[in-house]
């Protein structure tokens, strides 16, 4: 901790991000029609002129309002929009990298710790699980709890599958304890399965996959962007978590924990996970930066974040209409750049402090 506070680059990056975060939290009071900047992000006042340069004064009666950073192609205040873009960028960065982390942890532990040879499951359990899952899904749909109702949103889809998965697992465990126990054991090659999945994901260029996903979604929202970006980025993190766990498995303390007869869950939760927090922290910092980059690239192409939400990428895309209006392109670009730079710096300095291989 002391080491971290001594590192001025790390402290500077954290301070800058906290400042942005503070601005983001206060964005509604700072950048609204009765706030500091006296313009909301969507305000188009009656005398608003399009593409007016920074410092343009708009006066109505006694009050004078200044467009600090000029206006865009339909006369909205750029500064206000920039500030309102902060929460969106943070939301995408933080939540999508959390989703990535969760998926990567599950797959990483499965392929790194459980591996190819240790997990043996009764074939009956697998069949029972699949059968029950299908059956539950069928009846949920029949009695209109299913997904093909109208107005189903992203959140409900996740909840639905979580409930289905948990429900099926519980029923499977209960049923299998009641009746057939040892029928036939098969090896579940978790490691190979995860590696093959990573391979398939690596073969599809990421932006093309994202475009194909978003082409299908009829009602885009920020939540979809967060979910899909979070989902699409799991392979990289999984590989590194897997490698860390494989290294850790060779350590004597894991071996002795196994010999002491600790359960797998106990070993994973109290020996594996606490020992891989460092790479996770580093990679999550990098991930946040690149999630923001992907989101802004998508918005730049006018895909993903819906038009009524503020996104820096979309602002940059709009700026291409009028190349003489430099104030439209500089602001959002600098903000994206500085945010990614800060997240990269945090990851970089952390990896120096933790004495890991530097990633960039």
């Amino acid at each position, binding site marked *: 901790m002391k080491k971290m506070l001594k590192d001025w680059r790390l402290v500077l990056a954290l301070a800058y991000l906290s400042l942005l975060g503070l601005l983001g939290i206060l964005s509604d009071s700072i950048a609204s029609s009765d706030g500091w900047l006296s313009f909301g992000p969507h305000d188009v006042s009656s005398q608003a002129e399009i593409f007016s340069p920074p410092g343009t004064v708009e006066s109505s009666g006694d009050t004078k309002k200044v467009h600090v950073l000029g206006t865009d192609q339909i006369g909205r205040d750029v500064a206000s929009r920039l500030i309102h873009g902060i929460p969106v960028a943070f939301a995408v960065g933080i939540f999508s990298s959390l989703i990535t982390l969760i998926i990567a942890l599950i797959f990483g532990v499965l392929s790194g710790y459980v591996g190819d040879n240790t997990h043996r499951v009764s074939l009956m359990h697998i069949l029972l699980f699949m059968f029950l899952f299908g059956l539950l899904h069928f009846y949920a749909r029949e009695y209109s709890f299913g997904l093909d109702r109208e107005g189903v949103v992203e959140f409900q889809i996740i909840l639905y599958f979580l409930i289905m998965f948990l429900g099926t697992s519980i029923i499977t465990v209960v049923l299998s304890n009641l009746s057939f126990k040892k029928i036939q054991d098969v090896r579940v090659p978790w490691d190979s399965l995860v590696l093959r999945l990573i*391979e398939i994901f690596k073969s599809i260029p990421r932006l093309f996959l994202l*475009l194909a996903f978003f082409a*299908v979604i009829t009602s885009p929202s920020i939540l979809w962007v967060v979910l899909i970006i979070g989902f699409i980025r799991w392979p990289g993190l999984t*590989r590194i978590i*897997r490698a860390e766990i494989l290294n850790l498995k060779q350590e004597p303390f894991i071996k002795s924990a196994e010999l002491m007869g600790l359960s797998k869950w106990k070993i994973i939760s109290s020996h594996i996970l606490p020992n891989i927090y460092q790479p996770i922290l580093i990679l999550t910092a990098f991930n946040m930066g690149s999630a923001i980059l992907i989101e802004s*690239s998508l918005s730049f192409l006018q*895909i993903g974040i819906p038009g009524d939400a503020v996104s820096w990428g979309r602002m940059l895309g709009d700026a291409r209409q009028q190349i003489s209006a430099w104030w439209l392109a500089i602001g959002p670009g600098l903000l994206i*750049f500085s945010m990614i730079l800060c997240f990269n710096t945090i990851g970089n300095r952390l990896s120096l402090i933790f004495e890991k291989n530097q990633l960039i």
Partner: protein
Amino acid sequence: MIHFALRRIALIIPTLIIILGLSFALRDLAPGDEAIRLLELEGTFQGMSKTEYEQSYQRIARKFALNRPQFYFSILPNYFPDTLHLVLPKSKRFLLTNMLRQTRDWNAVQSFHSSLQRGIAELEKSTDHKDVYNELLKLETEKSLLDVRSRFQRIQQAFGKQSEYNSLLNRIGESIEGLNRAHQLVYPKFVWNGKDCKFHFWIARTFRTSENISLVDGVPVYTKVWRALKWTVVMSSIALLFIAILALVLGVTQAYFEGSAFDRFSSTFLYLLYAIPLFWLATMAVVFFTTPEYGTWTDIFPSIGLKPIFEKVSFWSELVRNLEQIVLPVICMTLGGISYLAVQLRSDILENLKKPFIVAARSKGLSEMKVLTRHALPNAFLPYLTILTGSIPAIFTGSVIIEVIFNIPGIGRLMLDSITYSDWPVVFSILVVISITTIIGYLIGDLLLMKLFPKSKGSFNLGQSTLSSQ
């Protein structure tokens, strides 16, 4: 060697199948009715009577397998008929399926359907019932039973008093009254469809070029994709070549002058470059270097976009003619991809320089340059080449943005345009084609690495690649 190469090639097959399946699933989810687009494309839309229109719809649907079930088998509720997928058009099938799910009574749904059809057929013969006729047609495009009921009520209020429609509307009304939820045991049933399914057709069509046509202009998809792919592959290859050479030069020089002003300056530069969004960099390059907007001395490069061509020329001569147009895009792509590789190469060389065999080489009296190029560099070459081939998809990703900004008719722009026009055959064929291109890129890289480093055995980017992280 041959054994590993064959094994490596065989690994492609399951990957391909899953990519095909994924793009099929996404395409099936895509909104809109493909048959209507294809009909519009034929131009036989206007001035058609309903029956004629339906006939041509049926023909198109049969030709493009739109009247088939999704997969080799389906699992349906027991009250479903086996032939529901034959109902066309798509909107009507959607309505009937919804009604069936709500009532669980196929006979009632069927009688509603047939009475509505008969009513429409009766009204179609004469021209003076157009208003009722149109209202009844709208009934077919509703989404659920509730909507049908409320719309029919409105129709009956408006036209029920006129005696000429009385019996007709009553008949339909009765059949709607009959749509009540039947109480019966519900259980799933398994239906085997064989290879008469959309999935099979779609996989087959992926490899047959003439039947896979764009919904916008009817051109075979692969003609379009191939034309665009050439631009992307040429530009990406040039960029990849520059990235390889520049990163090698930069990494080696940095490692040689470790700690000097040059090293520190270029490291900082690469570090900053890594964080710059490619689209921002490219937009700035376009604004400053292709227009005299900010001073004439910055107007170095020609305006974006390809030069217009008026006669049919081959791709290569078009490329030669547009060589100066792709200079700036290639520079941007190179800048976007170089930093990671250069930084990694530098740190790999420096790591190798700490090893004992370097001390031995130095104590032999070799010059520092020789130590670096003969001993440290070859050992850093394996990760260098792995990262280089591993960055192929990233290059393609970058090319989407570059093509949009620089207005180059590559595959990324084709993808975006096709999404705008909901041209699903093109969109999902591109997904497959670009994945195959990436896989081929990996394959070439892996075979090259296999040749160069026979000891490391096997694949680097695919297959066992991921084992290298141990």
